[in-house]
Each structure stands twice: as structure tokens, then as C-alpha cells.
């Protein structure tokens, strides 16, 4: 069960079909807003190499890494094929009073 909710940003700080980087307690996360106006969160670094996913491209439910174009489903964390083979960890997200929170 999710516990420790951390405020990330205001809802409108993330464009639709986009991602931002969020650093907390020495860890980095990627927080997404889908085209359907839902919010999701994953680990912020690609599982292939040490690259911030927040610099990548969001297309529908896919985040593509900016360095080697590795693709993940950011809703499930699933790696979608070479060069990424290891899934991303995902985190619960909620929106309250216009603010986005993740549970870490």
C-alpha cells in the first residue's frame, strides 16, 4: 500500500503528453501526464544507461529515452524492446486540489 505522498508540482506544470523530472531524497523520478490527462510516475533514469528520461519524448503511453531511443510503457514500466531489456519501476500518483503527488 502506498504511504509517503510527496508533492511533485502543480498539475499544470506538466503539459499533456509530456514528462518532467522530479528529484527527491537522492533519487530521481519521471512524472508523466498522458494525452488522456492521467498522471503516472516511474524511476527517472533509463534502465539501459544512466540517462534522464525526462529529456525524452512522450508518445501516447510510451516514453522514449533521449540517448538510445529505448522505449518504455510509462503506465506499466514495461520495456518495449532493444536496447532496453529491464522494466522501469513505477510509483503511485494522485492529484489533489490541482497538485500532483507521488508515493515513494
Amino acid at each position: 500500500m502506498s504511504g509517503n505522498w510527496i508533492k511533485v508540482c502543480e498539475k499544470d506544470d506538466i503539459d499533456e503528453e509530456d514528462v518532467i523530472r522530479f528529484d527527491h531524497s537522492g533519487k530521481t523520478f519521471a512524472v508523466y501526464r498522458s494525452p488522456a490527462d492521467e498522471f503516472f510516475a516511474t524511476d527517472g533514469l533509463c534502465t539501459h544507461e544512466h540517462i534522464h528520461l525526462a529529456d525524452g519524448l512522450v508518445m501516447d503511453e510510451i516514453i522514449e529515452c533521449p540517448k538510445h531511443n529505448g522505449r518504455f510503457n510509462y503506465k506499466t514500466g514495461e520495456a518495449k524492446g532493444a536496447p532496453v531489456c529491464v522494466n522501469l519501476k513505477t510509483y503511485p500518483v494522485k492529484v489533489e486540489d490541482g497538485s500532483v503527488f507521488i508515493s515513494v
Partner: protein
Amino acid sequence: MAIQTTKRDYSLLGASGRTAVETGLAAAEWYHTDISRKEMKALMQRSDAPAVRDTFVWLGSMAVLAGLGIAFWGSWLCIPFFLAYGVLYGSASDSRWHECGHGTAFKTRWMNDAVYQIACFMIMRNPVTWRWSHTRHHTDTVVVGRDPEIAVMRPPDLFRLVLNFFGFLDVWHAVIDMMRNAFGVLSASEKTFIPEMEQPKTILVARVWVAIYAATIGAAVAVGSILPLMLIGLPRIYGAWHHVLTGLLQHGGLADNVIDHRLNSRTVYMNSISRFIYWNMNYHVEHHMFPMVPYHALPRLHAMIKHDLPAASPSMWSGYREMIPAFLHQLRNEDYFLKRELPQTARPYREEFHNELAPAAQ
């Protein structure tokens, strides 16, 4: 007085590669020109339209040229058609393989994958092996002992370089690799960059390709003519010259072992025909700095960041005029390289890498 030079070990299992890992040169954080998220998102946007258009032109032209080549087969008139067909087969496939491997050519995934497989077959690069080798090339661009795609090693082997304009060595090695993979064997180097779970795919593709080449050779024997091989296989030799001509300019003569693409990559202005064949990879600094940007957006990216880059070579001719003397210099002093001057407005990055190397550039 004899010059003391640093002997480079280009093996992926050798001393230079180990040193690169120990010194933090491998998998390092590379320089990026500042560009706003909004602008970068606009540049990264995918579209099917440019690549669908270009692919119709590419494959359609090949079909027409092949038809004319067949129609005039046996007379001198077939030569120009095969020369043009060869360039589209043996050179345009290089850029299509590359761009579709990045997944940026088309918006639609299956289109990327389909053109990737076709282009890999034409250029004789196993689609699994080369996807992974190119991944490493982008992680460790021209880092000795790490980058498996360094086209001109130091000291340069000029004989080999000339032979490659005709594809001889490339094809020889490609055939050896294909046969080895088809027999289920991966080299020690391949195992350093292809994950274990991907290795069976390498073998499967090699077996399919062997079957296609065997069928083509069989057809040539059956009809008593090399015509089938003029259409499949041989164009990789007689049409390779353009991709070597443009590809050598990507990094040739520039610094190695740096972590700033402005110092080890070259942007060259080219004519529109070469840019079509090469799919805008003449904007090579830009491509390495931002590999997510599709080929059709590279001219826009270049216009946005050129203030932070070394001046582009104004032509292929000017690129060769600086590169060939550098190769000749490297025969005597393999530490020599062309030191790139950044514009006054550029933001320098990790100058220690360049400054340490600077004496060699004199």
C-alpha cells in the same frame, strides 16, 4: 627526433577500453547545447509523411532502374542504370538502416522496423548486431576500445580505406560474420555488446540471409548469368562508394577520447542529392548531440544551435581537404588530430580533455 605516440588498442576487449572505463571516459555525460524543452519537443515530433515519401522515391527509383538495367542487360546501355541502382542499394541503405535503427524515421513503429530490416539486408549488417553496436557508438563515440564503429583507426590504413569505397573489405567481413552467425557462433567482441537474450535473434537473421543469398546464387546458376547477383548482393560492392564518401566525414581526422561531439564529429553542407541518399546525416554533430531528432528536422536543429558549434565544413570537398592531410599526418604521429575551434559564443565543456590532447594537434 622520434615522436612518442600513444599506441591505441581498438579491440573491445583490450587495454584502451579498460582505461576508458577506469578514467570515466566510458558511458560519460556528454555535452549538449542548451535548448528549451518546448523547442526540443517540437524537433523530436515524429511524422510518417517525409519518410513515406522518401521511401517511395527510394524503392520506386530502384524498381525502375532495375527494370531498365534488366531491359538493357547485355549492352553498354545498362551500365548507368546499374550504377544508379547500386548507389540506392549499397549507399542509401546505410542511412535508412541508421535512421530506422534509431526509430526516428517514421512515426509508425512497423514502418521503421520494416525499412530497418530491408536496409540492413542491403547494407549487409545484421539488424541485431548493428542495433547494439550503434547503441555503443552513441554511448562512447570515438572512444578507443569502446566504440565498435570507428571507421578510420589510427594510424590510418589507407589501402583499406580505398578498398572500402568498393565495399570489398566490408563485404568480405560481412559474409564471414554472416556465415559464423549462421553456424550459431558469436564472436567475443559481439558478446560484449549484444545482451545474451538478443543473441539467438542474430543467429536467426543470419540463417535467413544465407538462404536468400543461396537462392540468388542458385538463380544465377540456373539462368547462366550474374544478373540476379547484379540485383541482390553485388550492388553492396559497386554502389558502396557514396556511403563511404559521406561516412568518412562523420568523424575522420577529428579528436578521439573526448566527451563533446563538437570536437569529434563533423557537420558538412552537401548537395541535395547526397542529402537524400544520406538522409541528412551530414548534420552529424547535431545528430550525435540529439539522436532523438528525426532526419527531416536536422536542418532546423542545425539552424537553432549552430552558434554553439564549430563552423560546418562548407562542402564535401573542403571536408576532404582537411581530412586527408590529417590522415597522412597520423601515419607519422597517430596522436595528431584536427582541433576544432569553438565559436566565441560557445559554452566550453570539460576543457581538460581537449587541453590534454592539444599538443598532439600541433
